[in-house]
């Protein structure tokens, strides 16, 4: 006996949006802290530190997210001989994933600041951390906002993968409803529409911010 796709089924799916958003937020904040650390470490003069952080970034950017998730969910529980819940495993996996991407974005932003800004501030006798704090990071942060928002979109979409290990977020909720109603041709497009409703405004915001920040800093970028 199939259930029809009615209001309660729809609301079940919509309610799951909050898990997607919560997971994204946790990973974004955790990854943000990690990413900032990585970005600053990447600009030090120690070759060893740069290689280490470079390796971390390569690992998380150059392998499938799904593999990372499996490694954390199934791998960790076997490794430490304990039952690892879905939430911590998924949160950890996506936090490390975000850290790698945000670290790269922010390092790129720091390196995009012209050398002349470093020189000018050094010639005013500012020390390294003073240069970062007053001159470099404020500018780097500004130009990093659009790609950071862009990554947030990537992250929100990425959390859909957690459905594969049974974590109940938006996509999984859709799968569950398909299992009881057998109406994939309505449900999956609805799920897509919900993602779109969250992601598209963010994408537009990112593009808008980019145009405004470029104008503020006097950059003529060829988009």
């Amino acid at each position, binding site marked *: 006996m199939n259930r029809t796709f009615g209001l309660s089924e729809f609301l079940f799916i919509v309610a799951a949006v909050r898990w997607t958003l919560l997971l994204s937020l946790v990973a974004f904040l955790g990854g943000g802290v990690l990413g900032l650390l990585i970005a600053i470490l990447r600009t030090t003069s120690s070759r060893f530190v740069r290689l280490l952080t470079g390796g971390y970034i390569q690992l998380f950017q150059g392998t499938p997210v799904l593999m990372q998730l499996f490694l954390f969910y199934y791998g960790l529980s076997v490794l430490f001989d304990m039952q690892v819940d879905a939430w911590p495993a998924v949160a950890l996996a996506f936090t490390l994933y975000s850290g790698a991407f945000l670290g790269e974005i922010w390092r790129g932003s720091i390196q995009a600041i012209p050398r002349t800004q470093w020189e000018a501030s050094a010639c005013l006798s500012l020390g390294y951390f003073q240069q970062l704090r007053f001159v470099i990071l404020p*500018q780097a942060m500004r130009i990093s906002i659009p790609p950071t928002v862009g990554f947030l979109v990537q992250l929100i979409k990425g959390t859909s993968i957690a459905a594969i290990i049974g974590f109940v977020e938006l996509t999984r909720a859709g799968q569950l409803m398909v299992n009881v109603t057998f109406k994939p041709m309505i449900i999956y497009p609805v799920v897509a529409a919900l993602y779109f409703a969250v992601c598209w405004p963010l994408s537009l915001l990112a593009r808008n911010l980019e145009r405004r920040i470029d104008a*503020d800093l006097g950059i003529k970028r060829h988009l």
Partner: protein
Amino acid sequence: MPILALNGICKRFGAHVALDDVSLAVEPGEVVAIIGRSGSGKTTLLRCINGLEVPDSGEIVFDGRQVERSRVGLQALRREIGIVFQSFNLFPHLTVERNITLGPTVARGLPLAEAKERAREVLRQVDLEDKIAAVPLRLSGGQQQRVAIARSLAMQPRLMLFDEITSALDPELVGEVINVLEKLATDGMTMILVTHEMGFARVAADTVVFMHQGKIWEKGPPSRLFTAPATAELATFIDAILPVGADVMHAIP
């Protein structure tokens, strides 16, 4: 005693010799204009003075003490030596006032109120008091360069370096910057300028240094160098910028 002494400075970039055994002494209050073609080493020499470039050999003596290449040493040096760049290099995310107060407050520990007062003073010196709250992007090139000069002045340096500061400006904006330089010179600031502004060098410089192929080719007061160049290279150089008379050309040994 000279405030700055460069002894035997050598610097090469790969196979290219930028500076070849350069020595120079600058007295307090002296205005030195360094002229020469591109690639003659003049900018490299200037940048060696405050540590933006590190010479391969030779010593730099500032105020009787040899300059330390350490981070702390350079930081201390840069409190005494100011520099103004060709492309101004103002901090675009800060107002004019903050651009100027940043150095004194952060690097010298001056309280903000005093730093703001100093900012007003130096802006008065460069004739831009009304732009104190402006953002660099809204200023013309000439105004930005004058703010850059004010920014360096706010650190109350003993020596000011100028790296072709009018080269990136539209011609009609050069005059306002030259006026500021002339005022600084009259006020007794020790200045070393890499410049193409021969007019300024003639009028305001105490010493003109002509560089060629990484060496100091000629050095002396502008009255002598511009009217009676001793070498063909200098004569050719001057001729290309201000045509000299045929009698001068023939008088060269």
